[in-house]
């Protein structure tokens, strides 16, 4: 059973291997090797035996084939209602077949499964709400991804993503030193405008421990500065951990469950070390899902709870505004058409639909907020979820997927989209690039800083 040098069943655990895969531009050699990769049938059978339990079995077996889930899937809609995009069909023709044949499948079939699992489903969990039997294809696709990952059939970028987490404990090669330095640099950079601004590292017993997405220190460190400014404005007693600050999980997108466990344990170790009252993660949907919703289970915590209450950033913002820790200058409230992107990962999967709208009520002048339709729990994925945004191989499909959000946004007539989720933010940026609909998009942090009333004692002293 030939395994390739780059494409094989071994996850990336060393820097050398990671570098090797990374240097294979676009995954050319990787995908070529994948065509030769054998399926380890006994291993697949063992995996099915150990992990295919009553929920998945019943779902596969009981599907009434009623097709009610079809319209629920945005990918079905944007692909011209192609029946091959019906959620029930997608899962039954992939996972269903693997189960039916008890793992006796070949390379070609596995590559087909890979295409479906990563380019025809973003694990947004929307279809599950429309199925009378409560069959959640998002959950099953995630399971399928796990099987595919363990056999080496995973898109190049996600193999790398998973390797990054395994090697650097972050989705990008940001080391502890890089991270701590970035925090110091940002505190310094902004301290002229914000005297006394601090990014306290490793403070034990703070009220809040803040965690983020590795792309912030790597690509937009100002986001960390903005978080610091807002905590500073609100007078919070907060800290960031030097280790365990990265809460995203490309391992989750990749289906690398062992990697997920490693990643989240790292965050939980920080919580246990610093003993904060609460943890708030940045404006990122999948990061929240990985560290607060699914994380406790990967970490094997029987109560399903993280070591301290773990909340999403929008929950902190709503609280700060509600309690007047941050006050908005009424003159600066947004007075142009604005809409909001509901992130599947914390709206559908954490119930935050009302919280984000509460925030809107403080930030937007009445009459200027236009909701997308459908919204809240029934929103559509941004089009780039589940790793879709990052996989070059599936860029054409991803660009088609963006059309749903484009049309939703256009229907609102909004000029600005508030997107408190990294991935959604990226997808909306890309859709503007691709389709030029003339919109702006923003996280909450810059808007808040722009609109907040700064008390005199926090203002820089003019010379």
């Amino acid at each position, binding site marked *: 059973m030939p395994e390739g040098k780059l494409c094989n069943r071994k996850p990336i655990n060393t820097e050398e291997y990671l570098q090797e895969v990374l240097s294979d531009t676009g995954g050319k050699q990787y995908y070529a090797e994948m065509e030769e990769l054998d399926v380890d049938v006994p291993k697949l059978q063992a995996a099915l035996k150990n992990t295919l*339990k009553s929920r998945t079995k019943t779902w596969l077996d009981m599907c009434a084939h009623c097709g009610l889930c079809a319209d629920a899937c945005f990918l079905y809609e944007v692909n011209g209602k192609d029946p091959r995009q019906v959620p029930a069909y997608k899962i039954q023709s992939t996972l269903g077949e693997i189960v039916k044949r008890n793992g006796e499948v070949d390379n070609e079939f596995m590559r087909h499964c890979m295409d479906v699992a990563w380019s025809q489903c973003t694990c947004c969990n929307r279809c599950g709400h429309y199925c009378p039997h409560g069959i959640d294809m998002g959950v099953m696709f995630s399971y399928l991804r796990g099987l595919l990952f363990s056999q080496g059939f995973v898109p190049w970028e996600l193999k790398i993503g998973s390797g990054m987490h395994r090697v650097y404990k972050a989705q990008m090669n940001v080391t502890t030193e890089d991270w701590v330095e970035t925090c110091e640099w940002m505190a310094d950079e902004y301290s002229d405008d914000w005297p006394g601004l601090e990014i306290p590292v490793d403070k034990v017993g703070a009220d809040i421990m803040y965690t983020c997405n590795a792309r912030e220190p790597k690509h937009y460190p100002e986001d960390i500065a903005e978080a610091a400014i807002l905590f500073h404005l609100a007078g919070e007693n907060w800290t960031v951990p030097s280790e365990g600050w990265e809460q995203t999980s490309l391992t989750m997108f990749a289906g690398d469950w062992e990697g997920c466990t490693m990643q989240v344990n790292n965050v939980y170790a920080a919580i246990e070390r610093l003993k904060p009252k609460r943890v708030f993660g940045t404006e990122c949907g999948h990061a929240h899902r990985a560290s607060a919703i699914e994380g406790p289970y990967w970490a094997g915590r029987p109560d*399903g709870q993280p070591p301290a209450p773990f909340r999403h950033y929008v929950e902190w913002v709503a609280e700060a505004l509600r309690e007047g820790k941050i006050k908005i200058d009424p003159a600066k409230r947004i007075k142009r058409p604005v809409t909001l992107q509901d992130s599947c990962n914390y709206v559908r999967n954490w119930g935050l639909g009302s919280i984000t709208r509460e925030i809107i009520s403080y930030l937007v002048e009445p009459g200027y907020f236009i909701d997308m339709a459908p919204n809240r729990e029934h929103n559509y994925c941004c089009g780039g979820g589940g790793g879709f945004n990052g996989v070059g191989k599936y860029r054409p499909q991803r660009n088609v997927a963006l059309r749903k959000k484009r049309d939703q946004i256009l229907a609102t007539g909004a000029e600005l989209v508030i997107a408190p989720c990294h991935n959604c933010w990226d997808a909306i940026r890309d859709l503007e690039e691709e389709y030029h609909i003339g919109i702006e998009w923003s996280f909450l942090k810059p808007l808040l800083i722009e609109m907040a009333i700064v008390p005199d004692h926090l203002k820089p002293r003019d010379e």
Partner: protein
Amino acid sequence: MYELLTGPMLWLAFTVSVVGLALRIVMYIRGLDWKLDRVAYRPHMGAGLKGAFRSILAFIVPFANRSWRTKPGFTIMFFAFHIGLLGVPLFLEGHAVILKERFGIGWPAMSMAAADLLTIVTLVAAGFMCLRRLVLPEVRIVTDIRDWAVMIISIAPFVTGYVAVHQYGDYGFWLNAHIITGLIWIAALPFTKLFHVVGFFLSRAQLGMDFGIKRGGMNYEGFHW
């Protein structure tokens, strides 16, 4: 023949069905795995049950969820079909008589006219469901032979019963055919997709618990199905 079918065979069919369904329920619940499903069922039973209840209710009441509301035509047919499918066999006068005679159970019954009407409604709804399978590409692509088999097993007792009651042909033949198809329906419950008579509740309860416990139900208002 009639005695045999409505006596021992009826017992047999019921036994197979009840034991089979019970076993599958037990197996389902035992196969739930908090770690693999990623739902802490036990420590948060209260929140879980609340979620389960809401989830079941949302789908057992017509138009109580967004899925039903977006497809009103389907919803009406779907409920007509299921109400007939359960209501007619349970409350038919002829069936009440057998229950009384054989098992000494007093059972309410509906009028013959009502049963007739409901039978026709059920058959029309069934026709609609079959048509959907043939015509809509999104349903056709998922339909397989088992779906047709289940439809035939479910409808056969209605057709044969209707013919027998209205004496369109040889009464004895149609009555026996009716009883046999009815027994097949009962015995098939645990082994076919008809398992959803209980599976629906199990599956909906599971997803409801997932939302009630893990996906925000413990912190915020429940999920709006």
